[in-house]
């Protein structure tokens, strides 16, 4: 909080429209995506988003245990968002907290919409994401990474899931806030994920004081930014699979 007091006079966007880290209000931090990084997993992905570093592995569809948790109608998507103990300034308790559980819940619900779960009754699709280093926007980095890992696992999806966290700092609507911006006294954080081709919103959260007008601006900026994220996800997948599927690693299940 002591740091926050100082920030009250901080200008988060200068007259030239540049942010403190040199980005424009619409600019996403650099994103690097690498597909197929865990050889034993059915699908996997490593992603860097600014200072955020996340790794995701997907197993399944596989037997759903314990069996009473299975559905005779569809696959159950189990998503686990966890943060490494060293991924935050203080040491994080490795025990999943309420935040981890909530993020895992809303993220699994996003995948339930994206994946054709009805094709795999009585099974489970397990998605594990570990945040290795963090600097704001980790739930979206994790979801974006996991979507590529699910695609890498060859699991049929309606679409990839792409997301971004938009928000407000110092009265300005900005895309993909970093930690410093997220700690602004008037900060608003809006993590959002969509199926990019149909523009269906599959994850949406918000906290902070936001007017309806500001929401409309933030939403517009988010959709633009998400298009860029989606292109990077596709490029990463193409890089692995532009050669014939049979010639690529045999990790992908071919239907």
């Amino acid at each position, binding site marked *: *909080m002591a740091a926050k007091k100082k920030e009250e006079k901080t200008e988060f966007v200068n007259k030239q429209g540049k942010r403190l880290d040199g980005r424009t209000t619409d600019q996403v931090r650099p994103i690097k995506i690498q597909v197929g990084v865990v050889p034993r997993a059915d699908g996997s992905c490593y992603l860097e988003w600014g200072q955020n570093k996340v790794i995701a592995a997907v197993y399944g569809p596989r037997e759903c245990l314990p069996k009473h948790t299975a559905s005779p109608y569809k696959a159950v998507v189990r998503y686990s968002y966890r943060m490494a103990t060293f991924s935050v300034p203080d040491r994080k308790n490795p025990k999943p907290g309420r935040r981890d559980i909530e993020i895992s*819940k809303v993220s699994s619900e996003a995948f339930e919409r994206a994946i054709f779960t009805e094709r795999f009754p009585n099974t489970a699709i397990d998605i594990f994401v570990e945040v290795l280093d963090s600097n704001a926007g980790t739930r979206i980095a994790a979801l974006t990474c996991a979507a590529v890992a699910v695609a890498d696992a060859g699991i049929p999806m309606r679409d990839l899931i792409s997301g971004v966290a938009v928000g407000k700092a110092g009265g300005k609507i900005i895309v993909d806030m970093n930690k410093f911006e997220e700690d602004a006294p008037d900060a608003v954080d809006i993590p959002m994920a969509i199926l990019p081709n149909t*523009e269906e919103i599959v994850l949406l*959260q918000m906290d*902070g004081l936001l007017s309806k007008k500001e929401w409309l601006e933030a939403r517009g900026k988010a959709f633009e930014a998400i298009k860029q994220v989606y292109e990077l996800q596709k490029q990463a997948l193409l890089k692995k699979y532009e050669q014939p599927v049979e010639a690529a690693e045999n990790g992908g299940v071919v239907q």
Partner: protein
Amino acid sequence: MSSLVSWDFRTDKVLQAIREGKRLDARAFDQYRKINIVKNISENADGSARVKIGETDVIVGVKMITSTPFPDSPDAGTLNVGVELLPIASPTFEAGPPDKESIELARVVDRGIRESKCLDFKEWSIEEGTLCWTAFVDIYALNHDGNLFDAAALASIVSLLETKMPKLEDKKIVKGEYKGKIKLSRKPLLCTFAKIANSVVADPSLPEEKAQSARFSVAVTEDDYLTAFQKGGLGSFTASEIDSAIDIALKNTKEIRKQI
């Protein structure tokens, strides 16, 4: 009642009605059920309330407790929201530690209140770095007939408005003595919507919740700020559905707030 077959049948009825532009209980799509608020239902709580939305029944008790402030905010008190989905309230609720459903509910209620900045946590500092007030807002579901989110949020804000600040002597709470009510600068309320077929309805009843593909909650203040969003459920929303839900929430809360 709780058999799968009976619910499948009811889900079909809900879907059929919604497709015809109707709801099974004859409400308009943006209309709430009857809301009943009773304040101060507990003698031992520092603030409490019981809220019914239709048959959904929730009680909330607030306890003001002295505690150690968080290291990152040594000069501020805090808020702690917990939800107990009692097995009393529904055949689908189980005893035991909070599951993901109740954690999500607690965190959405918490966000709606906290982010509205209605509580001045700085005022709750007793001694910087060592002692502060924490408001424990504990929500108990007594009957689940749909839309626990809004009932829980409404009961929480009503309870906080009734909450008295305990007296302190030598940094210890004097039981049963108070020095006035705690201050709230805003009254954030939560509005929850269900997407059923291709329609969005406010304040879903239990049969509607069973038939919904997705849920969207928005917390709004009397000065028309949005303070929390939460999308849940396996389906999705379009941007325009979210926008119109926000407009309905801003309109509906004006009516609900008159009852507080």
